[in-house]
Every structure is written in C-alpha cells, then in structure tokens.
C-alpha cells in the first residue's frame, strides 16, 4: 500500500518554473510539487495550509 502524502491547500497562486506548473487558490499540492524548504516557508507565511487526510 502506497504511503499517503500530506497535501496542502493553496491559499494564493503558486507556480514552479522548473516544472512549468501552476496552482490556483483552492488547489492542493503535495511534497512532490515543490521543494520541502519552499513548502515550509510557504506554510509559515500562509501561502499553503495543511489539510487533514492525504492523497494516495
């Protein structure tokens, strides 16, 4: 069984130049979408919010 990943709700638009992806407010991202360091910063700033549960 695959380990579930923590997912984060996007509060403002975010995007990755490297991957060419963009997520709008209300979308969800996981640790696969952005570096852990960036996710930590964004969680501190309120750009992302932790959600209950996860995705497979």
């Amino acid at each position, binding site marked *: 069984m695959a380990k579930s990943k923590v997912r984060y709700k996007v509060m*403002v*638009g975010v*995007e*990755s*130049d*490297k991957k060419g992806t963009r997520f709008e407010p209300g979308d969800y991202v996981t640790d696969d979408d952005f570096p852990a360091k*960036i996710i930590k*910063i*964004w969680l501190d*700033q309120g750009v992302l919010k932790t959600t209950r549960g996860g995705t497979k």
Partner: protein
Amino acid sequence: MTAVTQSGKDKTMRWARLYISGYDLSGDARSFGTLANGIAEVERTGWSEAHRNYIADDLRMVGISDLQVMLNDTSVAAYDRLITESNNTIIDLAFGGGGEPAIGDPVYMLRSEQISAVANLDGKLAIMSANFAADTDQYTAGAYNPFGVVLQDAATQITATISEDSVDHGAATTAGAWANLHVLTTASGDYAFKLQDSANDTDWADIVGATWTIDGSAIAAESIEFTANTARYVRFVATRTAGSIYAVCTFGRL
C-alpha cells in the same frame, strides 16, 4: 527566467527616464535638483539664540525639486502634462546603466503633488520648472521608501503573457513594499498585472495585495502597496487576454 545582475557605476543623465502618471516625459526633461530622501524636521527656531534646535519627527521627507523640462506644447508632452499643477500624480525617475533603464536598475518612486509650474527662459530656450512633494492624499507609511528597482522596462513591448526576469534583493523583508505601474501605450491591451516572490528564484507565489486595477486598456498609472512578507526574489507578471502594451513597473521595499 533568472535574476538580473546590477550593472554598477554606469548611470548617466543620458539614460535617465522620467515617467509621470503613464506618460514618458524623458525627451523633454533636462535636469532636476534633488531627489529628497530624509527625515523631516520640526523647526524650533525662535527669536533667541537659545532656540536654534531641530527635532526629527521620523516622517520621511521625499520629493523632487527643480525638475526642468523644455516647454514642449505638443499633445501629452511636458507642457501639456505639467501646466496644470496636479496632485495624485505618480512619478518614477529611472536610472539606466549604459542603456534604457532595464529590470534591476534603480528608480526614484514618488506619489506626488506638483506644487509649481513655472515657465522661464534658459538662455534662448523656453523651459518649465516644477517641484513635486509627497502627496498627503496618497501617502501612507507603506510608501515611505522612495528608492526601488525597475521590474518591467519601457523598452520591451508586452505582446503575450510574461513572467519577467526577477530581481534579487539579497534577503526577504517583512515590513511590506510598494509598487508603481505605468501603462505608456496600448494597442487594444487587456491584461492582468501582478507581482510574485520567491525564496529560490524557481518556485513562485503571488504576493498578496500585489495586483493592479488598471488593465492595460488605456494610458494610466497606479500605485499599490502591500504588507505581506516579501521573499528575496521578486518579479513582474503580465497575463494577456488581448492586445499589446508598453509598460513600466517599479518596486520598492520598506
């Protein structure tokens, strides 16, 4: 896109550019006195030697003194724009390094009130002089620092959705920031404008509050400010719906 590098000690009057509320008056501008950037003082001078004191009141003192322009009376040129003293103007005086001001070049930003429009003769040339002070109707603590950088340069036509090169400010800041946008020309432009920030110059977030109301459909200028933490790298983003424009965006941290 990557962060631009600064070009160093190559700023000259030849490549200075003056934008006033959506109009490029560079070709008419000749010189200016000073670009004020200090702390206002409360004068206590009285009719006695015992009162020769000043007290800093911690209010930023900004403004442009003795801007001198040619008395160019063609439409939307210097005379046309400056003859009626106006508050609610937005001024950006950008300093190009060996060329047109580019992304990353320094700029003096001012939410201004024009307080004079004096015509004169300099030798045989008809000129106008103007002074600009901070417009109290527009000014807030969020716009006290007048020195910023160019995030979108006037020389580059915007014809598609773009994420411009970023500017590396060395570190994140927490006191907020402000930004000016001038739409200089438009050909049926329909755009949305915003700023993004990044800690690593790769992964970007829209800055909360860093969007403009103007949409590129007409010559216009708008100054915005925001209190959000601002990461080390900042860039300008224009999202196209239609048309093409020339625009200038400037950005200053507090």
